[in-house]
């Protein structure tokens, strides 16, 4: 017995808080006080407050989206789903570059804290060199892979936190009120401009969303850890800024490369304090940079999953199982950014601002994504955490506005670089990704709903995870729709051709149109995270389906969904598209499979309850060729005959209607057989030239059928030999045909059932039978 495979969620509260909160604290606490003091003086604590508010708004929106779709990729993933590949590309590239800029920012800070306190070291080159060494070490570590690192990580962040808390607690007593007298020397503009610099610190909680697919109890822990870490870190930073600028005048603090060491030299007993801060700063920089690289490789992975990034970048190492190419790429570009520190004096502030820019754009789009999801409310989107009513839509609206305000106050060169990164995402999408993605997002849908209140139709079934292509069929005539669930890449082409032929055979009843459905079965706990790994398959299948449809020249609409129960989704699509037929692939009879399922858990509900004709086709050979319909007294005989005639059009053949009769004394069996065929064809509205007739006389009906159908390529057989239509019954003849016939087998169930056949039927029918020569 094989139970498949599954993914584990291993990140608990502590791990998530350490990843998120730890990255946030480490990110800036040792470097930002200098930059912030320079930009806004003591009022930079307000800058942190504003940045924290922007982050909190983003955290609320993100938490709702993340609990609705807890899979790897974070903001990128939600924006891509909601707004489509173009915005997905912008956010993906923005996050990746943002994380690289942030990582370079940490590593230069790392260099500063190592170089400045040591009297025999000096100079910008050395700072850059040490930053590069640190970066190389982190990149190497990630290349080889870490698995027990969370213990070490917790320890490091714990030590760092102790130093920071001691710094605050002791520092309070050294505050000189005079230093705080000129509280906001640069005024409101300076405060907002500084917000743009310090926002870099709030990349941390995004990391929680990035690993959302690995967090335990995601519905509770994701919102909790995101909001809690943002609030705690903001409070901490506000106090730290007040202490730092209170102890050392902001002008002096602003000019320092190691502001926290300068303060600690006064408050924490000189050299001891400096040493503690240096170690903590180094640890903080390393762990933040590490988290950024981890998050970056997940963003790249998520982009690859959606076809926005080359799979070659996402190859995992054979031995270390790490995405080593993505890690090297991230480390390499980060190294170049650190190197830029040789030429650019203001490098630290610029790196921080560009990273902030990217993430402000990202979060603004996340707010938009939330609005889109709420409006469209696609079926599989059911977040466990929902923003309380009073906050919506205030949170997303305010979030977008504030992001805009903060960006508007950034330095022109930062805005140029930031816009350049956005442009990169756009160009990448246009040049590389567009042809490879299937995601159109929900934006169009949301807009449509906005203009047509209540007009949300069946698109939602697949809207979230696939695209709903509006058909070209005109509104005045109802198209003749055939629903084709695709799941098996080897048979789907034949299935689609068959479905197309049968739809065209009914062109008189409406414009032929196919609806291809792919349902990814969501196996619940402990197999979480199915969405991510099977989207590729889904994309491939539907892309091929579109290709086949274009080849044949038939309208194709596609639906895709992730659901616990694929059969129910297929039924839903049949109902909502008002389909005339469903043509499904089927594996054939499995002997000894007595689990109460006739055709399998997916097919059973469809064949039992579909409000249309259903054909289950088992492919044994390439050609549909010459079909034969087994005509008997069963309730589906007319539909069976009809389908055989439809299928014959694939290869331009003529269908044969075949019946096996026992020899009896009271009637001529040949005559009786012809009567039955004629009656059935009449019921199916077939013209005599559309079919040929064959009557076989035998007392062993079952064997005779197998012998008789052996010469045909495709056998159509009714679902049941019983008239009891309510009960799903395969029927022994159908079962035997499926098992023994060499050709393709279609098991057919009609929407409308015939009355049980009886020889006392209307005499007119007998006449019809006698017309046949």
């Amino acid at each position, binding site marked *: 017995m094989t*139970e498949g495979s599954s993914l584990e969620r*291993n990140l608990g509260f502590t791990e998530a808080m350490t990843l998120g909160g730890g990255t946030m604290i480490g990110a800036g606490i040792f470097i930002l006080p200098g930059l912030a003091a320079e930009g806004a003086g003591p009022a930079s604590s307000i800058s942190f407050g504003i940045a924290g508010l922007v982050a909190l708004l983003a955290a609320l929106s993100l938490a709702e989206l993340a609990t609705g779709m807890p899979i790897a990729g974070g903001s990128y993933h939600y924006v891509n789903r909601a707004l489509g590949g173009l915005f997905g590309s912008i956010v993906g590239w923005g996050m990746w570059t943002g994380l690289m800029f942030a990582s370079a920012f940490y590593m230069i800070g790392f260099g500063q804290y190592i170089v400045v306190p040591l009297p025999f070291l000096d100079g910008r080159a050395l700072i850059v060199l040490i930053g590069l060494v640190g970066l190389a070490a982190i990149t190497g570590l990630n290349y080889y892979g870490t698995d027990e690192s969370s213990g070490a990580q917790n320890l490091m962040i714990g030590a760092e936190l102790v130093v920071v808390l001691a710094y605050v607690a002791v520092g309070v007593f050294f505050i000189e009120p005079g230093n705080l007298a000129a509280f906001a020397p640069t005024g409101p503009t300076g405060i907002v401009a500084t917000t743009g610099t310090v926002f870099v610190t709030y990349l941390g909680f995004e990391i929680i969303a990035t690993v959302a697919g690995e967090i335990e109890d995601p519905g509770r822990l994701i919102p909790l850890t995101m909001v809690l870490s943002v609030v705690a870190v903001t409070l901490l930073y506000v106090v730290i800024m007040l202490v730092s600028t209170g102890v050392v005048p902001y002008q002096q603090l602003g000019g320092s490369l190691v502001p926290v060491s300068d303060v600690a030299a006064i408050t924490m007993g000189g050299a001891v304090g400096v040493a503690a801060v240096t170690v903590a700063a180094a640890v903080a920089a390393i762990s933040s940079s590490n988290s950024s690289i981890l998050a970056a490789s997940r963003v790249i992975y998520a982009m690859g999953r959606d076809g926005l990034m080359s799979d070659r970048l996402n190859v995992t190492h054979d031995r270390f*199982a790490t995405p080593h190419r993505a890690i090297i790429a991230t480390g390499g570009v980060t190294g170049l950014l650190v190197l830029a520190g040789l030429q650019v004096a203001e490098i630290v502030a610029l790196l921080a601002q560009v990273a902030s820019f990217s993430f402000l754009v990202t979060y603004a789009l996340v707010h938009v994504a939330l609005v889109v999801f709420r409006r469209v409310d696609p079926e599989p989107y059911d977040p466990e955490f929902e923003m309380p009513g009073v906050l919506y839509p205030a949170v997303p609206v305010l979030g977008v506005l504030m992001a805009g305000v903060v960006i508007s106050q950034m330095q022109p060169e930062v805005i140029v670089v930031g816009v350049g990164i956005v442009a990169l995402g756009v160009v990448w999408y246009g040049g590389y990704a567009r042809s490879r993605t299937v995601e159109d997002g929900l934006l169009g849908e949301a807009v449509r709903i906005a203009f047509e209140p209540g007009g949300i139709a069946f698109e939602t079934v697949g809207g979230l995870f696939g695209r709903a292509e509006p058909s070209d069929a005109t509104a005045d005539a109802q198209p003749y729709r055939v629903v084709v669930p695709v799941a098996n890449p080897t048979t789907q082409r034949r299935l689609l051709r068959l479905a197309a032929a049968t739809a065209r055979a009914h062109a008189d009843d409406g414009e032929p149109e196919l609806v291809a459905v792919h349902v990814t079965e969501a196996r619940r706990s402990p197999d979480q995270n199915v969405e991510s790994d099977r989207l590729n398959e889904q994309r491939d299948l539907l892309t091929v389906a579109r290709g086949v449809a274009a080849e044949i020249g038939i309208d194709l609409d596609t639906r895709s969904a992730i659901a616990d129960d694929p059969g129910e989704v297929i039924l839903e699509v049949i109902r909502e598209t008002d389909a005339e037929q469903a043509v499904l692939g089927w594996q054939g009879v499995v002997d000894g499979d007595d689990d109460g399922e006739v055709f399998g858990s997916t097919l059973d509900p469809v064949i039992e309850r579909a409000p249309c004709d259903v054909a289950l086709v088992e492919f044994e050979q390439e050609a549909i060729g010459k079909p034969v319909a087994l005509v008997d007294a069963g309730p589906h005989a007319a539909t069976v005959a009809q389908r055989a005639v439809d299928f014959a059009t694939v290869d331009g053949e003529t269908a044969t209607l075949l019946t096996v009769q026992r020899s009896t004394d009271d009637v001529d069996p040949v005559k009786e057989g012809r009567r039955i065929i004629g009656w059935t064809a009449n019921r199916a509205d077939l013209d005599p030239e559309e079919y040929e007739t064959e009557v076989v006389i035998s007392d062993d009906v079952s064997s005779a059928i197998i012998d008789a159908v052996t010469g045909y390529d495709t056998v159509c057989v009714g679902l049941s030999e019983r008239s009891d239509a309510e009960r799903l019954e395969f029927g022994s003849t159908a079962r035997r045909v499926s098992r023994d016939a060499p050709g393709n087998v279609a098991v057919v169930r009609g929407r409308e059932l015939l009355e049980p056949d009886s020889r006392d039927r209307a005499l007119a029918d007998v006449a019809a039978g006698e017309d046949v020569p």
Partner: protein
Amino acid sequence: MPLTDGSTILVPVDVLNDERPATDLLTISDTVTLILLGYYPVPDQAPPAQLKADHEDDAQRRLEKLAATIDRDVTQRVVFTHDRDETVDRAAEEYDCDAILLPGSHTATDRVFVPLRGDDNLDRILSLVADLLRRDEATATLFHAATADKQAYGQSLLDDATDRLVDAGIDPARIDTRLATTDDPGTAIVELAHEFDILVVGETEPSLTDRILGRVSNRIADDVDRPAFVVRKP
């Protein structure tokens, strides 16, 4: 209380490094139910889904290859995980396993060593021992180490355990008991374990993770290099 037949045993297998527990060990008893848990260790650098996408088939194939060497039906499950111990813990819980098999490179399987700590968990331990003794060639040595003043209790523990195995239909000739006087049972177990082929030890810590990393089983894995069945607490 009579011993129950047919313990359920979880066998964690590293499917990345294609680690293969000896087949002999897995076919050791016909009455046990085996759960093969193929775990694919995922480094922090990658989301599990990424490795699953790349290596699911490999992992399944390796586990199937192992399962094919065992001449009966086994439950197979592949898991992509950041944390092996937590996964083993969860799987043991999910499949209601009586014991977990920790691999060792020693290949013989005849002599079973069973250090008993006390009445705790004795039913499960003895049920598993009975399962292992269903093979004709197997022998078991029940062992208890205690300080000098606790010897009487130790003897009654061993006698009682022997009686229950005999009641379950095991030939008394194949059950041996040893009682040691020592202040350091752990060391005594490790020293003696070298004389045997496989071990059956009871869980010592409340949590399974602790136990796998815990004192006795850890020392056995490191020092003795014998395969060990770690019997879970009910």
